């Protein structure tokens, strides 16, 4: 995959996120402060402006890190820091590369996953986006490493993310603002919905 592919992927994700801001706000209102969508839409818009002004070039890694920082600048706070960390860590895996193969993609997703966990200190089962991202990254790596096609690996990744999202639903939020609010059990965590949406957009689902 080239820089152009990455830029197209980022743009697809950003546009898709702009479509689900209301959903994210509603989910967050039920168990947080109701602003996930507000923050994500600021971030997505900022990213679209940034990539228009700074198209991807020869260094995919550096470019991705720049996209992450752009997101954090326009939409800081929790989600901004997590998104920026994910993109910077993923980018670090492919610094100075002008194209990335499937194994590289798997490493990037794992790096993003590890980075988010290091940054946010959320554990599996704390009912955060980690509950969707972690199994997805694991499934994708496993599939790629056992020789699956990108398409198939992507499908396993998506399935794992959706399963993780649903499995987190009955849990109680243990971290972040949702941790203050009672009665989070049985509600969808907006972060897990966001992860599934991002992966779907990458997969053009």
């Amino acid at each position: 995959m080239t820089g152009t592919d990455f830029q197209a992927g980022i743009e697809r994700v950003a546009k898709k996120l702009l479509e689900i801001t209301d959903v994210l706000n509603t989910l967050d209102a039920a168990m947080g402060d109701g602003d996930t969508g507000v923050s994500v839409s600021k971030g997505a818009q900022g990213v679209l402006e940034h990539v228009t002004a700074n198209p991807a070039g020869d260094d995919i890694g550096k470019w991705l890190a720049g996209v992450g920082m752009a997101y954090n600048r326009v939409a800081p706070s929790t989600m901004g820091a997590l998104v920026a960390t994910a993109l910077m860590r993923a980018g670090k895996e492919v610094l100075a590369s002008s194209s990335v193969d499937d194994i590289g993609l798997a490493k990037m997703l794992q790096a993003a996953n590890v980075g988010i966990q290091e940054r946010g200190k959320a554990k599996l089962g704390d009912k955060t986006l980690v509950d969707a991202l972690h199994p997805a990254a694991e499934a994708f790596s496993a599939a790629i490493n056992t020789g699956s096609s990108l398409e198939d690996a992507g499908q396993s990744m998506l399935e794992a993310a959706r399963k993780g999202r649903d499995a987190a639903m009955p849990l109680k939020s243990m971290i972040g603002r949702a941790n203050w609010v009672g009665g989070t059990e049985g509600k969808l965590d907006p972060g897990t919905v966001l992860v599934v949406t991002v992966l779907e957009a990458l997969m053009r689902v």
Partner: protein
Amino acid sequence: MKKILNDPNNFVNEMLEGMYKAHPEMVSSVGSDLRCLVRKDAPVMNKVAIATGGGSGHLPVFLGYVGQGMLDGTAIGDVFQSPSSDQMLEVTKRIHGGRGVLYVYGNYGGDVMNFDMATEMASLEDIEVRTVLVKEDVASASKDRADTRRGVAGMVFAFKIAGAKADLGASLEEVEAATIKALANMRTMGVALSPCILPAVGRPTFNVPDGEMELGMGIHGEPGVRRGKLETADQIGDTILETISADMTILSGDSVAVMVNGLGATPPEELYILYRRVHDNLEQLGVKVHKAFVGEYATSLEMAGASITILKLDAELQALLDHPAHTPMFRV
């Protein structure tokens, strides 16, 4: 909504413009980013720099404490939202005087993540950064989970101690150590009587019914330890002091600083009524109040309520507390 505003989306920036216009001799921005506010004379060379940051809506926290003897700079975000790590980095670079930077700020997820990112970026610029997290709110978690506690008004004491130590020429390690010591000897607990309204939202994001109070509620509406009938000032003072002294030993002969902090809409008269009881209780325990701070030091917009902070003093902390400070909203 009972607010004096223009476009609610410009709340933070217009407030900042007002601050720069009101205190041109004390503060300036880093370049054109109003949300990166530093001492007018930054960087102060050969001094450890103190930085903080977090969401807006808590004045005098953070901006009101930037100045001589306290903070060198701060990055602030939207109301109750973290600033970006970029902004923290800009402040860090601008205030660095060659002897390192200490981050002192409250233990909130978004702030921690962004400051940690800024720390990593600063290290790439060869700026040594250390962090002391303020997490002195006893009501926010039990003692065995004390590391997850929030930072509230005690932040102001932390700024004061760190700022004074740095002003006296101490090294980064020494400033860090004094601040850690202050925090180990400090506890806060608050009570909220009414919510606050985010300008961009226009209605309360949580509720405290009339005639009720929430003991231990956080400054963004984080739930506390007990919601119930509004108690008397004396009962509130007793409960808070008991909770604090169950968490930190306060002995006869100790010397302390006390802060009775208004959350926004509670008048100073009520804060003094509360202080009266705290003072009497401490006196009965044989504890001496070295200095009392009664007023609005860390607020939540127009929330009604108050918090009480106790800081146990040894000779060093007492001297640091009494060290001069001169900032837009605080003066010793």
